[in-house]
């Protein structure tokens, strides 16, 4: 048993932290909240230059051939800096399915572009039914000649406005088993018939309603097998979930550190508030939550990375980390007092954004039910 990062991972963590402190200050995060695109092409280019997008892709596709565990270390740093960029969406939600299920041509077409920062992608999965289960997929794709016509509405689709391609989860066949008859399509985001309407979110991240009206998708743009798309989604989910967990661990760590520093500096009644036991008790709870979140997330990521079965650990991690992050933000706010909820302060950025991660691919209640199934109930 070894809880330490490898030397390589330490280097990755340190260099990414240094880079992001310089290139992704909170002024940029705030600016991007107001900005229409929501990301900085210069920062994106810089990240690509460091090989981050292709970190866990094989070298054949211009990647670095590192592991998913290594990628989790990097994503933790992105979460710490709350980097406003379509990174997880492009690299994990869309890139991983291409890597796992794409044909040679698709892999050669998409992965090197993603790795070089030349391709932004967005997963168009959830719908107004707001569920992560296959029966929530009602957007239809109907075959017509050498292509399909996609119609219906996707909701909570992130980064759809800047994406070059959408990975669309659509129903191609009605069947009793709702996991059957789902197909994944790589759809040019500028295709006629796609209408984007921005949603106003608490996290000021860029989420959209995406309405498809007879959008053409060529048959060659099916990712994986016709009607068997759900199997690919199921394979991607643990990666997506754990990417979010690593992101939340980074955010929680940053909130903890900001809060402890504040408690050391803020003076009331003639002494730093961190000397008061009421504050110390809260800080101790925070670090317990953050450490627990870190280990449960990394154990699952390590198992996934090593190719071990980990459905139980993945759901445990998502359930725990989501709530631990929320609690950490809430305690952090309580200790910061009034100043923490002023827009100029960094605390509120984490608090507002934590919700989206908590919800991604199922909240704690959703994953607790999956845990119940896994432990034999």
């Amino acid at each position, binding site marked *: *048993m*070894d*809880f*330490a*990062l*490898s030397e390589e*991972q330490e280097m990755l963590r340190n260099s990414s932290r240094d880079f992001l402190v310089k290139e992704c200050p909170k002024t940029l995060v705030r600016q991007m909240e107001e900005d229409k695109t929501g990301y900085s092409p210069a920062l994106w280019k810089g990240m690509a230059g460091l090989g981050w997008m292709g970190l866990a892709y094989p070298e054949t596709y211009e990647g670095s051939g590192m592991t998913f*565990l290594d990628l989790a270390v990097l994503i933790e740093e992105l979460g710490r800096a709350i980097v406003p960029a379509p990174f997880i969406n492009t690299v994990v939600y869309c890139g991983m399915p291409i890597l796992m299920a794409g044909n040679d041509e698709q892999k050669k077409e998409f992965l090197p572009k993603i790795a070089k920062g030349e391709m932004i992608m967005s997963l168009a999965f959830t719908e107004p039914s707001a569920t992560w289960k296959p029966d929530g997929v009602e957007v239809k794709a109907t075959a017509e000649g050498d292509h399909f016509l996609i119609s219906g509405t996707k909701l909570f689709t992130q980064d759809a406005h800047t994406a070059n391609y959408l990975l669309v989860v659509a129903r191609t066949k009605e069947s009793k088993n709702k996991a059957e008859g789902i197909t994944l399509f790589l759809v040019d985001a500028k295709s006629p018939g796609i209408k984007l309407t921005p949603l106003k979110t608490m996290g000021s991240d860029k989420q959209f309603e995406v309405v498809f009206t007879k959008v053409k998708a060529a048959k060659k743009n099916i990712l994986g097998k016709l009607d068997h798309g759900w199997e690919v989604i199921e394979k991607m989910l643990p990666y997506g979930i754990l990417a979010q967990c690593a992101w939340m661990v980074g955010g929680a760590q940053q909130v903890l550190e900001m809060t*402890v520093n504040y*408690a*050391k500096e803020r003076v009331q009644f003639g*002494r*730093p508030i*961190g*000397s*008061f*036991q009421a*504050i*110390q*008790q809260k*800080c*101790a*709870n925070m*670090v*317990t939550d953050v*450490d*627990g979140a870190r*280990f*449960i997330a*990394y*154990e699952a990521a*390590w*198992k996934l990375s090593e190719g071990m079965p980990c459905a139980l*650990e993945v759901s*445990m991690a998502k*359930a*725990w980390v989501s709530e631990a992050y929320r609690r950490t933000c809430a305690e952090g706010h309580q200790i910061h007092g009034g100043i923490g909820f002023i827009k100029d302060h960094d605390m509120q950025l984490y608090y507002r954004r934590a919700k989206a991660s908590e919800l991604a691919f199922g909240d704690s*209640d959703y994953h*607790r*039910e999956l*845990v*119940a199934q896994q*432990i*034999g*109930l």
Partner: protein
Amino acid sequence: MDFRFTEEQERFRQKIRSFLTKELPPDWLTGGAPEDETDEWWRFTQKFLKKMGDNGWISATWPKEYGGQERPTWEDALLGEELAYIRAPAQDYWFRWKMIAALLLHFGNDEQRKQHLPGIASGQVYWCQGFSEPGAGSDLGGVQVKAQDKGDYFLVNGQKIWTTGAHRAHWCFAPLMSDPDAPKRSRMLSMFLIDMKSPGITVRRLESLEGVAHLCETFFDDVKVPKENMVGERGRGWLAAMALVNIERSGLGFASMPQRILEQFVEYCKETKLNGRPLAENPLIRHKLAEMAIEIQVCRLLAYRVAWVQATNQDVTSVGAIIKLFGSELMQRVVATGLEILGPYAQLVPGSGHARLAGNITRDYMWNLSLTIAGGTSEIQRIIIATQGLGLPRM
């Protein structure tokens, strides 16, 4: 990062498991265990502890010079995990052996080691811990029991409390006030080994709410403790006590005890019907047990982290406090949740007709109040984490 045990570690775990299967009756966890502190229990416990000694498990990590095998500290951690899982008898005796052995190995002199370590290794010489006093609980530095220097011995007067197992102990290790005029409180104490047969010692058993009387008060009335029984430097008893407290707090058992309870409840909820349907189908119960499983997983990792920190010789103070805090509170949550699931049967104690799960969970509900108090309260752990772990200023 690697969250695997080595093959060697797994083999060692299997060895412990087969030992426990052999030595404990098959219905050990379902009513077969003798009632705590009865004569039958003590006879059984003595035999069990001696067998642990015979297997070399008490002394496994010690230097060869003192009869140990210099095994990695991980093995001690795994042993603790398995003992707690199966609720082996008298684990507190085993734990105190770990503490006193560490005290002797780190702070003792050669003669003291030679005198005491073989008895500890044999599993037949019992020790109690004389730390707390009526006026020194969370504030352990407030120890008042006096050890007056009388030339070739110290004269000890005063009262200790929570000297668990003192009524059966041969020896006691205790920080005492030897230097009341020292400039700093932390320099006033020295650590002593006290023969419990010494004239002037009176032990009074305290019965706790679950009906077990093994917590004790120990009174010292002009007790003569030979000079050679002082461990380590004079005036450095506080330092030694703090090092031992770290050991006390960092057990792997914090996760394995609730793990066993979880497994019992998963089975119970599959077998038990309410209104014609298994409890396991009730979404609320599924939610509760899943949450239990998740928190146990977090606890296990926090515990393994401590063992890793120990194995790699890093400072264990803050991470030990974290597992003590999380583990003790988790056990209370798990047991409280278990009782919720039992419904009206939650009231039935061991030995009662109709008791579910042998009444054990109900007994745990009473017993586990002590978990968040003994070895440093949760509030003290949080202060340690905040000040020593996070560097927040002291009061």
